[in-house]
């Protein structure tokens, strides 16, 4: 009665379901990343401004998002908002909001660190060459900042892809949950299925994250 776990993968639509789950994972994380990068760039610049107001506001925002576990934020966005204001956000929307808020905060801090790592003499030299403020920023500071940002952004992106597994707690069946469903539905007949299913999930995550790393490597080479 107890068969080899690998056959579970090819039963019915199991493989397709896993891919469907991966799509949920990727959709949420990639939308959140695409929103976080521009917002994070703005946020990071805001953080380097000298004005005390913008500093305090951005600092509080960053610390708040950083201290709160993403799980708590997800619960607040999904259940808390409905309870408090009666707005019924879907799981998709709440997940994207939370991950964008989180991504913007983290990305902003990366941008800030990249910006302040440009030595002061770069600004001075640009000025000495007669560049305007805009030119200094566009030709000297931004290209160097971008190069520094690539590996950090890739780190953040892959981390976001993996952290989206939390959305299962607000009812979204992403790849990890589909895996668990398959393991559970077959646990009487195929107790060893877990290893195979998790193996496939590992492979799927790898296939999702590896192209992103490759892209980053290409960009880094081109911009050297």
């Amino acid at each position: 009665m107890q068969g080899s776990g690998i056959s579970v993968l090819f039963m019915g639509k199991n493989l397709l379901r896993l891919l469907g789950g991966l799509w949920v994972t990727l959709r949420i994380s990639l939308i959140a990343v695409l929103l976080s990068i521009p917002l994070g760039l703005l946020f990071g610049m805001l953080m380097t401004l000298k004005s005390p107001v913008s500093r305090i506001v951005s600092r509080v925002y960053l610390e708040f998002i950083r201290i709160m576990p993403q799980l708590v934020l997800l619960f607040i966005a999904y259940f808390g908002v409905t309870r408090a204001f009666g707005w019924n956000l879907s799981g998709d929307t709440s997940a994207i909001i939370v991950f964008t808020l989180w991504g913007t905060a983290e990305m902003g801090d990366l941008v800030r660190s990249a910006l302040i790592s440009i030595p002061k003499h770069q600004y001075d030299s640009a000025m000495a060459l007669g560049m305007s403020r805009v030119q200094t920023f566009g030709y000297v500071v931004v290209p160097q900042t971008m190069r520094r940002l690539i590996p950090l952004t890739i780190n953040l992106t892959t981390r976001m892809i993996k952290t989206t597994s939390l959305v299962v707690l607000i009812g979204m069946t992403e790849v990890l949950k589909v895996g668990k469903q398959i393991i559970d539905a077959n646990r009487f007949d195929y107790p060893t299925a877990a290893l195979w299913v998790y193996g496939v999930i590992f492979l799927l995550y790898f296939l999702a994250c590896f192209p992103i790393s490759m892209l980053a490597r290409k960009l880094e080479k081109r911009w050297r």
Partner: protein
Amino acid sequence: MKLKNLFIKLITLTVASLLLITGIAGCGNAKTGSSGTASYRTIDEIKQSGKIVIGVFSDKAPFGYVDENGKYQGYDIYFAERIAKDLGVEVEYVSTDPASRVEYVATGKVDIILANFTVTEERAKQVDFALPYMKVMLGVVSPDNALITDVEQLNAKNLIVVKGTTAETYFEKNYPDVSLQKYDEYADAYNALLDGRGDAFSTDNTEVLAWALSNTGFTVGIDALGNADTIAPAVQKGNTTLLDWLNDEIEALGEENFFHADYAATLDSVYGKAANPDNLVVEGGKVE
């Protein structure tokens, strides 16, 4: 120095106000729930929309699980399909986890929770339970080579439980000496037991009996612990129209022995001789 002080004060103030806002939000919702500012849907609204939303488990075979074609199956689902059929509406399933079941129904994100939901006093304060359709006690499963047959043997051992289940509250209340290892999901808890991360696993007896049958090397050493609990559908507090309809439905189904048929269709193949249907099934909402 002054500026720094001001800075710290400002931060504290902002964090405090953020906390306050979330706090107020937290209280406000409890009120909307009980005063019933219509975050639930009445039976007529459900019928009109042509769709009922039911929260079920998607990884708890044989009660609620998803088969290889992506379709929901199990004892709870069999009942859910019948509810939808008798209401004349489509059914939409929402996959829930043990710890978020109350929250789903309290916020009106689902109309009914039908996820092996054991009736307890604490839960009854937050949701309205309909008549029961099943009953269970707790069971403890452990490896054959270190079989646990008495609760006293669990002292100073690691007992695996799933967060938000009756097993968690029962052991916390009655056996504080047992150290609990808590997991969010059933699949994780079973893996922990298989890996030997805990000495035993406790949850509803039906659940552990079924699992031990198909996992050689594991036996249910304690099969009836605690008081007999009942399992019932739950709706949002104050949703009386839906509650009354459900109660009538369960009474009517009792006359045709519906839940024995449900047992035969979904549970019998799993439990076989390990359990007697009369010990699990409740017909017409009446527990002897």
